[in-house]
């Protein structure tokens, strides 16, 4: 029987959740036995080669590229998991949500104390920012949420092994943290 396929994706976050995936230490060997990784920054596979069983997405949605890739994950993943505070709530990047986008950009690229000859970037190669940073579930359907900043390696391990074995996802008290 073919191994279940797992993909991971990264949007507006700090890559900390991916670090946490790696943090499962030697269990990564078990995991590799258990699953096969498709698209993921871990193996640098950029495109989905086929539909996968589980997708883990890190980061909130702050620009048009995030939207596109998140939608792509939804289309290609049977189960989609929002991994970590940013994917679940918007997280730290969403601190800008109460400030109008124009003010944010004005401060960052024009008025900021360290800016010289500032200009708001408009290069066509960079993604266009959205008015807010959105949690993933406002953009696509999310099947499971794993909060944490980052979620601990144990949470990720517990979640993956439960889902792969078809058991209910029942996390003990100490594993669920928002920070």
């Amino acid at each position, binding site marked *: 029987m073919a191994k279940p396929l797992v993909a991971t994706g990264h949007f507006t976050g700090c890559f900390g959740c991916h670090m946490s995936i790696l943090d499962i230490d030697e269990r990564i060997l078990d995991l590799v036995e258990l699953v096969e990784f498709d698209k993921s920054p871990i193996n640098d596979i950029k495109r989905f080669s086929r539909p996968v069983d589980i997708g883990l997405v890190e980061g909130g949605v702050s620009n048009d590229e995030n939207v596109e890739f998140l939608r792509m994950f939804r289309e290609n993943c049977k189960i989609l998991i*929002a991994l970590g*505070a940013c994917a*679940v*709530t*918007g*997280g*730290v990047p*969403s*601190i800008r*949500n*109460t*400030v109008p986008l124009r003010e944010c950009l004005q401060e960052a690229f024009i008025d900021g104390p360290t800016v010289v000859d500032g200009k708001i970037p408009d290069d066509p190669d960079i993604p266009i920012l959205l008015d*807010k940073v959105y*949690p993933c*579930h406002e953009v696509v359907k*999310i099947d499971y*949420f*794993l*909060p944490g*900043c980052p979620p601990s390696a144990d949470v990720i391990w517990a979640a993956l092994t439960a889902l792969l074995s078809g058991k209910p996802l029942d996390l003990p*008290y*100490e594993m*669920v*943290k*928002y*920070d």
Partner: protein
Amino acid sequence: MSDKPVTFTIDGVEITAKAGQTILQAADDAGIYIPRLCYHPSLPPGGHCRLCTVKINGRPASSCTFPADEGLVVENDTEELNDHRRRIVEMLFVEGNHYCPTCEHSGNCELQAMAYRLGLLAPTLPYFRCERELDASHKDVYVDRDRCILCGRCARASREVDHKVVFGFEGRGVHKRISVDAPHNLGETNLAAADKAAEVCPTGCIMLKRKGFAIPVGQRKYDHEPIGSEIERSRSAK
């Protein structure tokens, strides 16, 4: 309020309340935890958060304000009530702007702890994303209204314990905010760092300056045990 001890049941457990106790106080003494956020044992009840709503003889009422009485049949730990409580906590998370990963109070925060206890993995109700004022004008204390849940503990503590009235409310409905007793900001008030009002905030809204992140992760109040465990322990010890 009864002037003599009374006996009633919570979820079928018979408990005795001292004269003048509310249902919540009697439950605490008996080692039965009723979830709550705006209630504080050294302050009069506020009735704001409604988390402590129980069914009394079948009708919902806040246990922090309801006097214990002979023969009452109280339901507390039911799936229905806990669903409503979880939803109320969820409402608070999306009403304010709560960024747990950067908050000094994370791990010691009662709102966060209540979400853990009730098993809230992610708020999915629509976020309000309203701008809320930050007031860092006071030399020792700041008010970060993003984190305010309008429990009114600060206002009650200032009035009842500190005898100062530094805090109050302003506005109504979704525009309601914590307000300070000065023309512009907290720095103009007579709040002192040692005041009860600066100590009772359940979230990271009213915080002492230069004290943040003092306790390492793993040793914080709610890192290992759900909120309410100290009350429930007193029951299992009996």
